[in-house]
C-alpha cells in the first residue's frame, strides 16, 4: 500500500527566509500522525506546499500516490483540509458556506453536514460573522470532514475549541482512523499530540528533528520529582535505578530531586520505604525530553 503522504527533501524558502528545509517523511495509511512544532517552525508552510497553495523551492510531496504539483485538483478531491488561520466569507451563513464548498466538490453532502453539525452542536443558520471563534472552527472542521476524505490535513485543529467539542473531535479522528483513513495534524501542544496521535514528527526552525512512536514516547518522557522526607535519607537506592537520570539531595538531606524517564513507579516504591512528607511532580520540558531521547542524546538517554 503506498503511503498516503510522502515528503522527499521538501524545501520551501520565502526569498531568503527558510520556511522548511529537506523534509523527508512517510505517513502510513490509517494512522493519526502528529506534526509538532512551536510557532514559526514551518508546519503551515509544509501543509500549504503539500496542497499546492505554494510551490516548493525544491523536493516533492506525493499525496495518495499523486504528485502535489501535477495532480493538485485530483488530490483536493480526496483530501480534507482545515486551515491554521481559518478565514471564511463571513457574509454567508454556516450552512450556505458548507453547501457552496460541497457544490464545488460536486457532491451532495447535506446528510454528512447535518450529522457533523449536530455532533459538534453547531447552528448552521447563523451568519459566520455572528459566530464565536469556537463555532467558526466547527464550520472549518465540518468542511474538512464532510466529503469523507481519504486523507485529512488539519493545521492546529483544536484552536479555539472548547474541551467538550475537543473530545468529540478526538472521537471523530479515531473513527476516521478505524476506517483506514489517514489523519495528518499539526499542533504546538505536545500533550495533545501525545494523547491523540499514533506517531509524530517534531519540526523546529524548518527542519524535521525526529519522527517518534507515541507509545514509545510515553515510556520515555522525563519527569522531575521533588520528594520531601520526614528524616534524612540515603540516596544510593535511587542512584542505582536505571530510569533515574539525575539524583540530587538537598544539603540538609531531607529533600530529594530525581529526574525520571518513563514510569515513576520504581522511584515511588523506594521512597515509600521512608516517611514521605510531600511529593511534587514536574512535567519536565516534555518536548526537550522527546528530542533528547530520539536524537540519541546520551545525556538524557
Amino acid at each position, binding site marked *: 500500500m503506498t503511503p498516503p503522504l510522502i515528503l522527499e527533501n521538501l524545501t520551501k524558502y520565502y526569498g531568503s527566509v527558510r520556511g522548511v528545509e529537506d523534509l523527508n517523511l512517510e505517513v502510513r495509511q490509517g494512522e493519526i500522525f502528529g506534526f509538532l512544532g512551536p510557532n514559526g517552525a514551518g508546519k503551515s508552510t509544509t501543509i500549504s506546499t503539500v*496542497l*499546492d497553495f505554494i*510551490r516548493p523551492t525544491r523536493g516533492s510531496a506525493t499525496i495518495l500516490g499523486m504528485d502535489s504539483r501535477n495532480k493538485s*485538483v485530483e488530490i*483536493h478531491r480526496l483530501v480534507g483540509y482545515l*486551515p491554521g*488561520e481559518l478565514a471564511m466569507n463571513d457574509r454567508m451563513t454556516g450552512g450556505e458556506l458548507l453547501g*457552496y464548498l460541497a457544490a*464545488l466538490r*460536486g457532491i451532495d453532502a447535506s446528510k454528512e453536514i447535518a450529522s457533523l453539525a449536530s455532533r459538534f452542536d453547531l447552528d448552521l443558520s447563523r451568519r459566520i460573522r455572528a459566530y464565536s471563534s469556537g463555532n467558526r472552527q466547527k464550520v472549518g472542521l465540518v468542511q474538512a470532514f464532510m466529503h469523507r476524505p481519504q486523507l485529512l490535513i488539519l493545521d492546529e485543529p483544536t484552536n479555539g475549541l472548547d474541551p467538550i467539542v475537543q473530545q468529540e473531535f478526538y472521537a471523530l479522528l479515531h473513527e476516521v482512523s478505524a476506517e483506514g483513513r489517514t489523519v495528518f495534524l499539526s499542533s504546538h501542544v505536545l500533550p495533545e499530540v501525545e494523547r491523540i496521535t499514533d506517531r509524530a514528527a517534531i519540526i523546529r526552525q524548518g527542519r524535521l528533528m525526529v519522527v517518534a512512536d507515541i507509545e514509545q514516547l510515553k515510556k520515555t518522557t522525563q519527569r522531575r520529582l521533588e520528594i520531601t522526607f520526614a528524616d534524612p535519607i540515603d540516596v544510593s537506592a535511587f542512584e542505582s535505578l536505571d530510569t533515574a537520570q539525575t539524583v540530587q539531595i538537598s544539603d540538609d538531606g531531607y529533600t530529594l530531586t530525581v529526574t525520571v524517564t518513563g514510569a515513576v513507579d520504581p522511584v515511588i516504591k523506594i521512597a515509600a520505604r521512608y516517611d514521605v512528607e510531600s511529593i511534587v511532580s514536574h512535567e519536565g520540558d516534555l518536548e526537550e525530553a522527546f528530542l533528547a531521547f530520539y536524537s540519541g542524546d546520551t545525556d538524557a538517554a
Partner: protein
Amino acid sequence: MLRSVFGETLWMRRSSMLWYSIGLTILVGLTIAVYPTIRDDADTFTQLLESMPSGMMSFFGSSEVTELLSPSGFLNSRVNASIGSIVLAVFAISIGTAAIAGEEDRRTMDLLLATPTPRHRIVLERFAAMTTLVLVVAFVVLVVMTIGSSVVDMELSIANMIASNFMLALLALVFGSLALAIGGLTGRRSVTVAAAAGATVATYFINGLAELVDSLQGLQKLTPFYWLQRANPLRDGLSIEDTIIMLLVIAVSLGIAVWGFQRRDIAVN
C-alpha cells in the same frame, strides 16, 4: 446560486449590482430629463459653451457645440464621456479586484483552492461573473435610455443605443480585466486597486487633455476612453475597430490573469 464560483460571485454582488443600477438610472434619467430645457434654450447654451475653452469641452466628448447640444452628443457627453463610464468602470474594477486579490487579502483563497477547482477555472468563472454583472447594469442603462429618450423625443436609434451601451460595458470590462490581471499577478488588493483606479483616472485625463496638449495625442490613442468615444456610438453606431481593440485588450488581460495566478504562491495566513 451557491453552486459554482460563477454563481457565488453573482450572489455576493447582488446588492452592489442593484445600487450601481440605481445610480446609473438616476444619472441617465436626470440627464435625459434636463435635455428638453437645453433643446428649448439652445441659444443660451450655445453661447455658454462657445465661451468655454475648447480643451474643456473635449472632456464632454466633443468640441463641436452643435454636436454637443444634439441628443446623441448631449447624452454621450454625460454618460460615455464622463461620470457614466467612470462609474461602470469602478464597478468592474471592484469585481475584478475582489476576484483574486480580494479573496487572497481576506485569506479565504486556501479554502476555495482546497476544493477540486483548478486555478484557471476560478479566474474564468470570476471573469464570466464580472462580465455578466457589467452587462446587466449596462442593459439597465439601455432600458432607461430607450424609455427616457422616447419620452422626451430625442429620436435616438435603438441600434445605436445598444451599440453605445455595449461599448460602455466593454470599456468597464477593459478596466475590470486589468484589475483581474494585476490581482492574478500580485494577489495584493491594495496594489490592484491603486493600479486599476490609477489607470482609469490617468487614461481619462490623457484622453480629455489630448485636445489641449498636442504631445498627448499619441498617448491618447492608447486610452480606452478614446476607443469608446472617438466616434460617438450614439450617433455613429458600433465602431467595429474600437470594439475589436477593446475585446483584444480584455482577452490579453484575462490571459495574463490566468497565467499570473497559476504560476505563483497564493497568500495563506
